[in-house]
């Protein structure tokens, strides 16, 4: 058995170990590689910056704990930015399994920024129906969410003063890990009720959302942990996303090296087999 053949039959647990070490070591000993801001993330940041104080900012946390490592840092950064700008924050989720986590992140950032529930922000919680909830909110926000997550009636809350439906929202962002998510918010929300929409998503979903970004259907996109790190850089508040970028880069490098090596070994074995076939003839 040649070296290339041995390498192609290597115990895959060794590869797991290599990837594990490439992830763990940069987390323990960070290098601080530079982070370049992409135009799609800047699009979200610039629009948030342009909003005047007291504007209504709707954040839909459409993900569950399975996507927490990518979307949790995004939600933290966006909420910090919104609270710093003194926007009126209306948070909600279309994913029932993410309700508790969404409540925890909104409450945590609000407490950190000294904001008051009902006055500066509200967490509406979850309502059944998926895309139907978006349409319902487009007609009547109080019909879709008669009470907030804590059971308080939404009508009369100071934070929702002057807000009757989605047309009164100045900027909405959906942080989506699937369906319903960013696309649903565009199709059933922005396209009909004409409010400005941005998106945040997991890395898996990002390529599918670029057509919406290019055509102007969404005005910005925060993609995966990388997007979260860019947003953290923009607001000048280092978090878990920036800390994870070194690990992300080193793991990608390891994967590229492994892909190249595997191809080299594969072609080497193939050439050898061909050569043996010819000499056999």
């Amino acid at each position, binding site marked *: 058995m040649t070296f290339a053949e041995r390498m192609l039959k290597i115990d895959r647990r060794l590869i797991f170990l290599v990837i594990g070490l490439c992830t763990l070591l940069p987390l323990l000993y960070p290098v601080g590689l530079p982070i370049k801001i992409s135009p799609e993330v800047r699009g979200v940041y610039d629009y948030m910056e342009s909003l005047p104080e007291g504007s209504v900012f709707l954040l839909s946390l459409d993900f569950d704990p399975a996507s927490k490592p990518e979307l949790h840092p995004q939600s933290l950064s966006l909420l910090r930015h919104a609270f710093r700008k003194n926007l009126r924050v209306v948070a909600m989720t279309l994913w029932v399994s993410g309700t508790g986590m969404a409540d925890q992140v909104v409450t945590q950032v609000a407490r950190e920024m000294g904001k008051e529930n009902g006055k500066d922000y509200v967490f509406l919680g979850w309502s059944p129906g998926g895309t139907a909830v978006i349409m319902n909110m487009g007609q009547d926000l109080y019909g879709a969410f008669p009470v907030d997550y804590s059971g308080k009636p939404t009508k009369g809350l100071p934070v929702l003063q002057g807000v009757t439906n989605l047309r009164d929202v100045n900027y909405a962002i959906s942080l989506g890990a699937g369906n319903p998510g960013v696309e649903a918010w565009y*199709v059933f929300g922005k396209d009909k009720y004409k409010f400005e929409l941005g998106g945040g998503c997991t890395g898996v979903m990002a390529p599918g959302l670029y057509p919406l970004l290019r055509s102007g259907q969404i005005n910005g996109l925060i993609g995966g942990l990388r997007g979260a790190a860019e947003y953290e850089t923009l607001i000048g508040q280092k978090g878990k996303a920036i800390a994870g970028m070194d690990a992300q880069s080193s793991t990608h490098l390891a994967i590229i090296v492994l892909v190249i090596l595997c191809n080299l070994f594969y072609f080497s074995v193939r050439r050898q087999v061909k050569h043996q076939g010819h000499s056999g003839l």
Partner: protein
Amino acid sequence: MPIETIIGAWVATGLTLFIFSFLYRDNPLFKLAENLYVGISVGYTIVKTYDTVIVYLIWNPIVKNGEWALLIPVAIGMLMLTRYMPKAAWLSRYAFAFIVGVGSGLAIPRVISSYILKQIEDTVRPLLIMVPGEGLSFTWSLLSPASSLNTIIILVGVSSVLFYFFFSVEHTGLGKVVARTGILFLMVAFGAAFGYTVMARMSLLIGRFDDLIEFTDPSYGRPSLWLMGLTILILVMMAQRSSHKSEEE
């Protein structure tokens, strides 16, 4: 630190390590964590759905506010449950008909507008734009979304990929060249999607490692270290047991 946070850290660490143990080989620790995940997810969803739908959206408005009109959607929803009674199962068709009818009516125009009309509009952008006061304007930069170069690439990509999936004409001669170009564009798209998928999966790993590192802190009682030791010990014992068994056989 509150005791519930410490317990949470130990549970999260244990379950993460049990799931990771699958990378070594399938084992009972992994199965325990996997089944717990499924059970807890379903349990959580049932409780939240009951609380939000039954209590806040149905019971309270009807009983406290007297919104009796809500009984109509409740009745339509209840028809779904007749699927469990074979003799009355036909009643559920009314509920399904309502959902399919309303759902299609609402979704079809929106989807056509968003995914077809808007995307076609973006695909067939003009190469030259007449800017008032400036005359004709065009750019040739890959970095600019409005660039004429990007417009040409998108047009060629969309047309060739569409042709690749057009099977009524044999892909020979010029058709073969166009179809091959379509394959190239598809490969680039698959490559980009795969690259993003790798990035996403690595992000999830980073997220778990982040927590494991955080839980090595003495304020949590160092659950990462203790439970990692325990998991490795159990895996070693199981490996020894299985090797003894195979020797006996």
